[in-house]
């Protein structure tokens, strides 16, 4: 049951990414191109996505998930070096390609060889990430 729901969730997510234009890298790069021909579409996508999700968070209070278990607890509010440095790395790669992880997967069937090359490189980055993360945590503790 959990897998069936997850499949439907993935499908809705993918449909939303495609229909909103987020699998088109020119729209994403256009959003980041503040000093060029700026495209505001991404702000509408973000806004449209945050509204239902904000309502959903309200419903989590004093309840448990429909299929059991518990809701995710709020993360440690500490702003770590990993959060900042990781987000900067991500933003750089996002601008260079116009792809973030969701659209990279959603466009697998029509993204061509370039899309597959990006996905393989992204997975490789995820493999080495725990080492980079541990390194920064260690540096923070030593400081």
């Amino acid at each position, binding site marked *: 049951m959990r897998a069936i729901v997850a*499949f439907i969730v993935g499908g809705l997510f993918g449909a939303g990414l495609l229909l909103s234009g987020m699998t088109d890298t020119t729209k994403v790069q256009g959003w980041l191109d*503040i000093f060029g021909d700026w495209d505001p579409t991404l702000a509408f996508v973000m806004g449209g996505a945050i509204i239902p*999700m904000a309502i959903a968070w309200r419903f989590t209070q004093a309840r448990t998930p429909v299929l059991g278990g518990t809701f995710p607890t709020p993360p440690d509010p500490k702003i770590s070096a990993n959060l900042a440095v990781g987000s900067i790395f991500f*933003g750089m790669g996002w601008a260079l390609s116009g792809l973030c992880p969701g659209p990279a997967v959603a466009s697998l069937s029509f993204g061509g060889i370039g899309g597959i090359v990006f996905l393989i490189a992204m997975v490789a980055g995820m493999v080495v990430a725990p080492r980079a993360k541990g390194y920064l945590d260690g540096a923070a503790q030593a400081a």
Partner: protein
Amino acid sequence: MEIEWVWGLLGGALIGSAAAVFLLVNGRIMGASGVIGGLIDGTGRHQSTERLALLAGLVIVPALIALAMGGAETHLTGNMAVLVIAGLLVGVGTRMANGCTSGHGVCGISRLSLRGIVATLFYIGAGAVTMLLARHIWGLI
């Protein structure tokens, strides 16, 4: 142009509804980098079926819609070196930061998480600076 923001809003509402269902029904955060990353580094081994099912939906449904629409275009650069560097940066960065556009952006900001808001400001800021340098100064992309 006028019609594009309507599609943006509608598509965004679909993305947010998907995240809402995943949270309320399965009790999980719909973050693309977290779903993939957990499969790769083994931190999400116990929910691997759920993760793989989500990824299957994320590939198959857009494939069907693209087929029905007579194709979809990503306008992705053909520069393989740029794609490899960008992919590595996105992979390392999202796992170091524990989230990407969907996890920090959609799921984090909607619960007013400070981490989600800070991460989003950092990746949009870094993205805008990279775009300025790579497109307007170096002419790379």
